[in-house]
């Protein structure tokens, strides 16, 4: 299971990379693997406000549709529109070319509700027991 050290994580298997007041978000390798082939994505639009733990995107696999929640609150600056025609990038590269959106962080204090890579790894191992 690929869990990069420089990211923070949610219990719903989203990741966030914080750089200053910007955050890149996506879903984890564990999430893409459980979903299987991702065939469709509904992304938030630039300018949209997202709230921590609230809906920010929907992904569909062959078998089911799943909601994705924002790991932090903020304003969407950019969405990865490449995914619209190539949602399989999420399967191929969940932490890199499979990123969902770039947001301007509203409250960096929300970071305290996220897990670091060690905590997330333990969390995921707990799920598979």
């Amino acid at each position, binding site marked *: 299971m690929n869990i990069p050290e420089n990211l923070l994580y949610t219990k719903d298997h989203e990741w966030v990379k914080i750089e200053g007041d910007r955050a890149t978000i996506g879903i984890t390798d564990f999430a893409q693997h459980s979903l*299987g082939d991702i065939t*469709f994505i509904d992304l938030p639009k630039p300018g949209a406000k997202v709230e921590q733990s609230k809906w920010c995107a929907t992904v569909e696999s062959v078998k089911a*549709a799943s909601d994705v929640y924002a790991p932090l609150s903020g304003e969407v600056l950019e969405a990865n529109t490449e995914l619209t025609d190539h949602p399989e990038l999420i399967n191929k590269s969940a932490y890199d070319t499979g990123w969902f959106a770039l947001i301007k962080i509203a409250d960096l204090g929300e970071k305290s509700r996220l897990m670091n890579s060690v905590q997330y790894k333990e969390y995921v191992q707990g799920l598979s027991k």
Partner: protein
Amino acid sequence: MIDSQGLKDTPLLASHKELGAKLAPFGGWLMPIQYSGIVEEHNWVRKSAGLFDICHMGEFMIQAEPSRGNLGNLLTINLEKMPEGACRYGFMLDEQGGIIDDLLVYRIDNSGWMIVVNAATSEGDFEHFEKHLTGATTLENVSQSLGKLDLQGPLSTDVLENLLGPGIRGLRYYTFSYFNLLGERIIISRTGYTGELGYELYMPNDKIPQLWGKLLNDQRVKPIGLGARDTLRLEMSYSLYGQDIDKDTTPLEAGLGNFIDWNKEFIGKNSLLKQKQSGVFRRMTCFLADSRRSPRHNYRIIYKGQDVGAVTSGSFSPSLGIGIGMGYVKDQIALGEQVVLSGGSISINAKVTSKPFYKNGSAKSGEIK
């Protein structure tokens, strides 16, 4: 074998685990859903050859003279018209015309028949035969000992030729023959559930792992799970029993009236004739979404603002790159008409289309059109 959850497993469970398959219950069996991924497996079957573990399906052997007894009355297929070595698709119906099961009949010789049925309905089907069948000298459920592997894809003839010699090339669509393989004399039919050129191989369970291994040794062959089996059959608009058809639906509603021979008697015929006269109340309709978004089972079908039915099967179509679905609609909507398929907060614009969704299948390749 039966595990602690009451799920049966096939002779290939250990092999599926070794191949890293995701396993899940299906029809009372623990079955492989996917190996490398549904889309990749789907595309492999469309371009090469895929191997499916179908040991969960049921097989009955029956000895019955077609002119005596009532075997023919239990099925919508005209048995007397079937040549030896032919396969036919059809239905077992109840008195109301509801579908007890959809099945394949193999005519082995003048009075010998193999009937292949769905896994979940297998026991009920057999009871139905036990209860109603007259004039048969043999009725045997061989599901426990007879396994089945499906090899499907445009290269499947080439793959089988390596094992069986050129004789396999003579097998025409919807026929079968006996072949010698691994010391057994086995039935192989040119049939399938994917729309591609392909075969179904019936082998005693104890030799299924050997056959599976031998076929997978060929680089052109990959194992395919039930996930891709479902997307492949849906692209062909083939019905899945328990989801698209069941006891509450008739073949006429399902758009499968062409698998009924009206020139003979069968259980359910009177009800179907009445339905034919009065017109069907609802009919199976196919939908093409305008995006990659998948319609799902139980999504409502909205036409001109009215709720006209529900989706029975829906998925992303790997071959077409868009969402596809089918479901029963009150009355008839013309081809090309726009509908909305809606589930919760999701609404998908779609249009009514003809079947099948995927029109480039190789199933009938080499046949005279």
